[in-house]
């Protein structure tokens, strides 16, 4: 064997050893056949469609966060205008990022301008069309963009914390990169995503607020009516429940609360559950406040002894207990909680509130039995097509066909090993990709072999026929592979989960194919020719 050919075989051997090592000898060197099998199944990462599990796509309602920022600005502006005694007609939110201030007193216009440019750097001011002394405030696009990004990042973090707290195995939480404001959540092995979904979707915004009015009202109109149709400044109406007497079912009531909370969910140090002391069989959520919040909460409760305080969760009053004595840093939420729902609420409170509400856009659940069937059918189809192709190759090309079969097997080994090393995910369409790789991989061999036959017919000697065959087919093979890779890349860019798996499998398979059908296959031919010498005859 000439030295060049020897090096070729050494390289091929290294590739084979590397691939087999990657497949069966990681993470631990196997000592039994069972361990080999275990390593093999561990190393191939299966997609949700094969393993079973849930796939959720949700959309964060980012506009809500922008609207909230706008409301805050309106509150702040109203306060400042009163403080600086700048007379104005009305402040109104036009949409999420625009505020209209009407009829600012003409003598105070300069003061108003100063106020906006000094205190409200996030806003730009322009005269409002059709309004005398009216101004339109617009949130700066850069501020809106930042807010969007922060909201999305925060939502992703919060959801990740919540799902991790649920203790599910290997979840994936990521931006889809597809539509606007979308987050993808994948929960392998989760056959029923109902609980995970409600935990993800829970707002988790806890606020403790003082009651501005000790009374509760059966409707919003009644609440307004009690104050002459106008709410006291700095207060709001919040719906809630109240148990009027022991044993009766809770009724929907409305509270009038101070708008500014005493403490919020961000002040929590911990949240746990325990069996309810007042309602046997029910559960409650106990929480502890951080030290800085306790310094506010202590004096507040001391000054409000004998009055009620509302525990508000996601703009809904859960309970409004009477404060009996000074409370330093602990509290509890009572309601009709079961053990599980209390645990879920505690979890949500610990993980923090979502910056905006979310909506589900897509939900797919694959049961474990379907996944197992798909694997079985996919593997069976792959093996069947492999056998069909191999039988044909050997009949049609005889010994050269055996050469092609070797190349094909190696192609598959490299493909699977590469996927294991890269941590790529095998999906059901990915298995189809493997089968297509078999089909298209054969194409390269056929191209070369047909060319060699042609050269032989033209009277070339075996050695030069082989050389010409490989040389001439080389560019064609590159061209055909590149075009297929181009389409696979676009599949990857535009596709989701399973389809991406298909694109990845196809690309890896095609790259491996260039190596096996050109490099390996040719090395085998060369070895054969070098042993036969000048009188070499090809079995093709």
């Amino acid at each position, binding site marked *: 064997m000439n030295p060049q050919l020897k090096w070729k075989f050494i390289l091929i051997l290294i590739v084979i050893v590397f691939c087999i090592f990657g497949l069966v000898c990681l993470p631990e060197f196997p000592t039994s056949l069972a361990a080999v099998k275990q390593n093999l199944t561990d190393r191939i990462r299966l997609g949700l469609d094969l393993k*079973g599990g849930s796939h959720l*796509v949700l*959309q964060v309602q980012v506009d809500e966060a922008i609207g909230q920022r706008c409301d805050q600005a309106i509150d702040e502006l109203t306060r400042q205008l009163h403080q600086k005694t700048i007379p104005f007609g009305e402040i109104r939110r036009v949409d999420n990022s625009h505020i209209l201030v009407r009829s600012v007193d003409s003598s105070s216009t300069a003061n108003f301008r100063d106020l906006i440019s000094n205190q409200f750097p996030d806003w730009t001011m322009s005269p409002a069309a059709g309004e005398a002394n009216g101004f339109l405030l617009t949130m700066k696009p850069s501020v809106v963009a930042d807010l969007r990004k922060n909201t999305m990042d925060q939502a992703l973090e919060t959801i990740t914390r919540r799902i991790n707290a649920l203790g599910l195995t290997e979840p994936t939480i990521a931006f889809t990169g*597809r*539509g606007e404001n979308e987050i993808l959540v994948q929960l392998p092995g989760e056959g029923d995503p109902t609980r995970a*979904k409600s935990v993800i979707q829970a707002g988790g915004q806890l606020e403790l607020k003082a009651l501005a009015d000790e009374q509760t009202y059966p409707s919003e109109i009644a609440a307004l009516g009690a104050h002459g149709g106008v709410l006291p400044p700095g207060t709001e109406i919040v719906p809630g429940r109240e148990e009027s007497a022991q044993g009766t079912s809770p009724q929907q009531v409305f509270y009038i609360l101070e708008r500014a909370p005493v403490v919020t969910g961000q002040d929590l140090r911990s949240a746990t559950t325990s069996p309810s002391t007042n309602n046997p069989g029910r559960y409650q959520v106990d929480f502890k406040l951080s030290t800085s919040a306790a310094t506010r909460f202590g004096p507040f409760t001391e000054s409000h002894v004998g009055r009620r305080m509302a525990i508000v969760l996601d703009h809904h009053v859960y309970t409004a207990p009477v404060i009996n004595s000074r409370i330093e840093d602990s509290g509890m939420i009572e309601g009709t909680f079961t053990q599980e729902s209390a645990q879920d609420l505690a979890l949500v409170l610990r993980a923090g509130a979502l910056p905006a509400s979310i*909506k*589900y*856009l*897509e*939900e*797919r*659940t694959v*049961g*474990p*039995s*379907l996944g*197992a*069937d*798909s694997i079985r*059918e*996919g593997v*069976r*189809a792959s093996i*069947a*097509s492999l056998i*069909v*192709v191999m039988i044909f190759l050997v009949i*049609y090309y*005889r010994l050269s066909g055996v050469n092609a079969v070797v190349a094909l097997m190696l192609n598959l080994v490299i493909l699977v090993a590469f996927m294991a090393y890269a941590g790529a995910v095998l999906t059901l*369409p990915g298995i*189809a990709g493997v*089968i*297509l790789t*078999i*089909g*298209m991989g*054969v*194409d390269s061999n*056929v*191209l070369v072999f*047909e060319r060699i036959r042609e050269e032989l017919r033209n009277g070339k000697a075996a050695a030069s026929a082989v050389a010409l065959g490989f*040389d001439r087919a080389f560019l*064609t093979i590159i061209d*055909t592979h*590149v*075009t*297929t*890779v*181009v*389409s*696979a890349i*676009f*599949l990857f860019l*535009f*596709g989701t989960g*399973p*389809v991406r798996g*298909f*694109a990845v499998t196809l690309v890896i398979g095609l790259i491996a194919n260039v190596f096996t059908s050109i490099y390996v296959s040719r090395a085998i031919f060369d070895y054969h020719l070098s042993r036969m010498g000048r009188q070499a005859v090809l079995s093709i």
Partner: protein
Amino acid sequence: MELFKNVNVDWMGKAKYFVTLSLVLLAAGWISIFRSHGLRYGIDFRGGTLVYVRFSGPPPLDKIRDGLRQAGFANSSIQGISDITNQSSQNDVVIGLEQQGTGDESLDAGKQAILDVLHKTFSTADASGKQDFNSITPSALALYLTQKDPLNLGAAAGDKYNQLALKLTAARDRDFGGIVTGFDQLKNVEGATPAVISTISNGFTLGNFTIRNVEIVGPKVGAQLRKQAVLATLYALGGMLLYIAFRFEWVYGAAAVIAVFHDVLITLGFFSLFHFEISLTVIAALLTLVGYSMNDTIVIFDRVRENLRLMRRESFPEIVNRSINQTLSRTILTSGLTFLTVLVLFLMGGEVLRAFSFAMVVGVVVGTYSSFGIAAPIVVVWIKYRGQGAAISAGSAAEKRVAAARR
């Protein structure tokens, strides 16, 4: 063994028959799309709810239909599945709901309604509050076993019941397709002693259906996915046009792209004729066949380029004929083998891959045909229109590039 030796067919002389055939196929498919069946979009593109249920016996389609109608889902679709390679799938049913029930507020209202109807109509769960073994999760089963402790392990149980629960549910899902019809079926599971099995049979009932798969796609996502599928296809075609224009001449690129576009249109027509649904994986198949059909075209064009150098006297159509004839055995072999593999996939790949492999089966045939029936004639017609000189210069320009690439 050789099947094709010294073939000598005047392909370009028959080009008008090919074009006629293509037009007929296109017309048939697209009349079907616009005048009769239309294209059936799968749930990915249409949006809606799909619940895939397996029953332990022949599925009582009428009862499901009645139950759904009473629940107010009159226009639900209920379809049995028949899969020749998987006997147990004969008892499978796919229940579909259109957009209704996937409102903005709760995406899964439709799914809940379907589950409610199924549980009400078929569940054997009785008043004793026993759970259904066929829908229990491994962790819930482990909890039950730990409480009952059939092996009398006490505190030493450790992880054992978790492992046992995993094995039992795995046997249910893998060996019995998700439905166990008698508790003694579990006796071959490692660690399932008679005590374990009797404990399980005391605590559980055996429901006669199991949910295999749920897909819910909101209306927004459907529209978005449709747009993306079209974009992916167009970008892929554009990318190939650029690559071939760079490697050959732009007319070759244009011809190849027109040919594969023709393949995609004909395959879509077949989808309408045979009532298959267009899903995301079908788009993947379409893009693959675009790449595949392109392969055949490139092989022929490569040969044309080579022959332009060698055969200076022959006319361009003769050169193209010769090139097709020379590559014919490769074309037929490769296509034949790929056709066989996708045919195996179509027959054995299971329900989920059925539409995917149908696209490939049709696409491989049409894609092979279009490379000599459509792509080559386009180039010939163009060269004829521009004069023979264009062909020669195209050949020599390409030749220089090939020579450069070889070095």
